[in-house]
């Protein structure tokens, strides 16, 4: 089973929930899909870490073979190819590495070139296999790294998604069986929560809500969940002591039996408990 944690807004508590869910699940896999800022590893401090390089492919054009027919430029849906002076010109950051230009070229002038764009770090923390996707600084798209990281899913898998509701989040939850929407009970949190909710609905994913850092209830969020028939799996109160442990990169469920119980109950409600 794959459970994805997402929130829209950054800082809502995706990593907190994801790390503790994996910890409560016991033998499990934790995958950090937030490849631009993978911070789950700060909590896990994984051992026996092995690093592998992730590559992207991009087209290269053989100017001698190119007959200037423009087929590649016309077929590029991302407008990553421009036709200037009877030759194609590539914009690497716009290219989505789909390979179509190579397929349509009648002269065999297009080939693919691999280049490293990030790494996967795979280690272990007790019974949890810890996978971190890490994108190199300056790279425009982390999708290939997320894609590789997801291949590491094994048994009960918790996916720690990037913030937002764009392509990288979509890629992360494509194969998820269940989405945990971590909501912060604030106007900003609620706004972005609705965006990710729209995304999971579009993808027809089962989902439930964990309201994090709850003080008094935020009425618009509560009403929205009720209207939509969204199940609120848990309300985690705002707690300064818990925040203190978090700031020290400690895994709450390893320190407090009641936190372990809390996350086991969430797993149970999702249907992922042992």
């Amino acid at each position: 089973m794959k459970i994805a944690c997402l929130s829209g807004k950054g800082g809502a508590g995706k990593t907190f929930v994801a790390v503790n869910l994996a910890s409560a699940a016991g033998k499990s896999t934790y995958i950090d899909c937030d490849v631009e800022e993978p911070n789950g590893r700060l909590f896990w401090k994984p051992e026996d870490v092995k690093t592998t390089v992730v590559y992207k492919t991009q087209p290269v054009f053989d100017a001698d073979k190119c007959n200037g027919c423009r087929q590649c430029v016309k077929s590029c849906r991302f407008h990553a190819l421009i036709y200037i002076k009877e030759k194609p010109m590539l914009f690497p950051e716009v290219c989505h590495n789909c390979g179509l230009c190579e397929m349509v070229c009648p002269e065999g002038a297009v080939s693919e070139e691999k280049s490293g764009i990030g790494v996967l770090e795979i280690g272990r923390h007790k019974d949890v296999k810890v996978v971190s996707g890490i994108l190199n600084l300056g790279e425009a798209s982390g999708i290939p790294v997320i894609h590789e990281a997801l291949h590491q899913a094994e048994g009960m898998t918790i996916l720690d998604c990037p913030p937002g509701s764009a392509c990288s989040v979509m890629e992360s939850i494509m194969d998820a069986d269940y989405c945990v929407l971590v909501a912060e009970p604030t106007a900003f949190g609620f706004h972005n929560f609705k965006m990710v909710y729209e995304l999971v609905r579009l993808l027809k994913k089962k989902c439930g809500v964990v309201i994090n850092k709850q003080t008094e209830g935020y009425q618009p969020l509560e009403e929205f969940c009720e209207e939509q028939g969204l199940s609120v799996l848990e309300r985690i109160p705002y707690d300064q002591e818990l925040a203190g442990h978090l700031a020290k990169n400690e895994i709450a469920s390893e320190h407090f039996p009641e936190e372990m119980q809390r996350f086991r109950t969430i797993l149970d409600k999702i249907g992922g408990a042992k």
Partner: protein
Amino acid sequence: MKVAIPLDENKIDVCAAFARAPFFLFWEDGKETVVTNPAAEAQSGAGTQAAQFLVDNAVSVLVTPRCGQNAADVFTAADIKIYKSEKVSAAENISKWQEEKLEKLTHFHAGFHGHA
């Protein structure tokens, strides 16, 4: 020599955006044509698509308030000169350009790449 200017919905004023302007004004030796920008609604790659449109229409000069780096790279490769617009209406900018009073646009933004 053909000059292009991104146009607003009213087809008179210069549009603040280049790649997603609804129209372009093409000015060629006093003759003006307003054309629809095929890149205006592009999901991605609007900058390169709009630039390709100008290249294919044999434009030699672009007058615009701003322009993304990718489009600017296309114009450099295609030897299209870019000037910074100063006035509200496209017509006034054409006059300024004819008087050689417009400055070259030298600062390009990084592009939004879906992060608008």
